[in-house]
């Protein structure tokens, strides 16, 4: 290695390296099998909650993308859920096959989201959030009251088949929901690990720095809104099918939007896993809170407050932290960065600060002995 000055501030050996993101294939496969198999092992009454969990997970996922990654908090997302319910009902009732209804409704949701996406280019922070609040209220009280959207003789939502696969049972609907969720999770996960996901984060952290890298703000912000809306609207179709009825607009109002935001926040808004955890958690929460005589939204508010106070990224964040702490406690802490600078006296009395690159993790406190071959070494 050619001797030279080391760059400013070489970090010393430290603990707690963040693990690079990689999906452990074995765990995923196991989870997939479990997800498909459990409704065949557990009683029929549980299947409803499974289906509800897929709906909630989809909504939570949409908010992970929009609020978690792109940093645009939406307090009006129940509007998209409601849109999916009402339009989905009309299409399904009219006989449109489910395999067409789902993408059609998704596209509609994306289109409607432009009402928020385009202003988002000029508004930031709290102002945009308040606009989403107003949007939610306007949808609840005006859009969903329009005969064109809702006014319909029958509010029944049929349990349509998906390419022949029946959804008449809750288990069938769950499996369909699982398929939709699975595809969405994969797509979103892929986006996260690509330039698109990084661009979303860049816009969240510093639009100026993003601009300096040539990133165009508009497609990413509008795209995040559109994707988020599309996922939630699609979830709405399944939601309607699950309840086999269309609830009144007041079910898709401001409180519901707050509840939907809580799904990923409690689960962990930074990651796709958080969406799944949050969705499953809240889907199964209703019977639990009933046992204690506590209202669901009250429990939701408490959980929101607790998670926010705890400064972890929801359940997923807390678990990750515990796992890391466990690993650290279980043995000597691995060093994070494998290079350090040592002051080495040279024959002429000056000192050189060569950079030594250590390719393996070392426990803290390890002493290293350096030997220099005459004539310098190679890195």
């Amino acid at each position, binding site marked *: 290695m050619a001797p030279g000055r080391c*760059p400013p501030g070489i970090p010393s050996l430290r603990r707690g390296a963040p693990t690079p993101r990689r999906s452990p294939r074995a765990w995923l496969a196991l989870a997939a099998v479990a997800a498909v198999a459990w409704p065949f092992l557990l009683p029929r009454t549980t299947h409803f909650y499974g289906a509800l969990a897929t709906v909630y997970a989809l909504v939570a996922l949409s908010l992970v993308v929009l609020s978690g990654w792109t940093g645009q908090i939406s307090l009006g997302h129940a509007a998209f859920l409601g849109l999916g319910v009402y339009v989905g009902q009309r299409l399904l009732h009219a006989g449109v096959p489910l395999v067409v209804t789902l993408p059609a409704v998704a596209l509609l949701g994306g289109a409607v989201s432009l009402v928020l996406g385009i202003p988002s280019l000029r508004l930031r922070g709290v102002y945009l959030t308040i606009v989403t609040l107003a949007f939610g209220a306007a949808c609840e009280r005006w859009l969903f009251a329009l005969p064109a959207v809702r006014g319909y003789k029958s509010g029944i939502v049929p349990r349509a088949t998906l390419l022949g696969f029946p959804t008449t049972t809750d288990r069938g609907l769950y499996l369909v929901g699982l398929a939709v969720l699975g595809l969405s999770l994969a797509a979103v996960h892929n986006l996260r690990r690509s330039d698109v996901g990084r661009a979303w984060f860049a816009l969240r952290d510093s639009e100026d720095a993003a601009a300096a890298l040539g990133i165009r703000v508009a497609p990413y912000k509008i795209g995040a809104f559109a994707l988020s809306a599309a996922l939630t609207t699609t979830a709405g179709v399944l939601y309607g099918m699950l309840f086999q009825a269309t609830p009144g607009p007041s079910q898709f109002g401001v409180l519901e939007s707050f509840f939907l935001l809580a799904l990923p926040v409690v689960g962990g808004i930074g990651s796709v896993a958080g969406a799944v955890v949050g969705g499953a958690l809240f889907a199964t929460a209703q019977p639990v809170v009933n046992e204690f005589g506590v209202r669901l939204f009250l429990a939701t508010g408490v959980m929101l407050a607790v998670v926010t106070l705890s400064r972890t990224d929801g359940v997923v964040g807390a678990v990750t932290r515990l796992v890391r702490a466990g690993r650290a406690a279980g043995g000597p802490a691995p060093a994070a960065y494998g290079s350090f600078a040592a002051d080495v006296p040279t024959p002429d009395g000056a000192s050189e600060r060569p950079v030594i690159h250590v390719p393996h993790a070392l426990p803290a406190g390890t002493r290293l002995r350096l030997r220099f071959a005459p004539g310098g070494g190679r890195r």
Partner: protein
Amino acid sequence: MRGHLEADGLSKHFAGLVAVDGLSLEVRPGEIVGLIGPNGAGKTTFFNCVTGLEPPTAGRVRLDGVDVTGWSPAARARHGLARTFQQVRLFRHLSVRENLLLGRHQHYGAGALQAALRTPRARAAERDAAARAEAVAERCNLASVLDAPVGELPYGTQRMVEVARALATEPAVLLLDEPAAGMDTTESAAFGELLRRVHDESWSVLLVEHDVPLVLSVCHRIYVLEFGRLIAAGTPAEIRGDERVRAAYFGASVG
């Protein structure tokens, strides 16, 4: 040849204040040019005009022959103008590696749909970006911190990450906004060394700085600004001996 930056008669007036007054300077391809001047000389304002953050009151900015006056910062970035910020603006929710990968945004070989489907093309794009990001990290001595969360790094290292990220865009011109701010003399000297080492003729640098020793040691040519006007221009040796520059700095050590 890429990397030709020209500012032509740039002026910026604020209400009652002339911050920059008819400044013309040039960065030729492959050069490292410094811009120094005492506090309030107008360096930051000039910088903002060149990067597109503020429109000049008069004058033009040209990049490789193209008049970019009036272009947005993002448009200029896409044309090859990279920059760093006075206060390091790294993406704190991303690791160093992902920050550098974002530097490859303009050269990314796959679109959103392909990325979502993880097509072979998307995978290739990601591999290519990763390889180039690692190469840049290697050149800037950042290979060891690639997976570190940005917030945990020492300030000097963060500064280097920002420069590396800008380099990853394969810029024609790199504008550095007081990169040595917050560094001590050893660190800034090391920074200068590194800059010289990674620089080659395919791109040029405009270094706006307060740290005069750094500028004198690194730059091929230097412009000196005072009260929005150019008072000297030349090689480091010429600037070191220039009476006007000495006078402008009044007791700040020059050279």
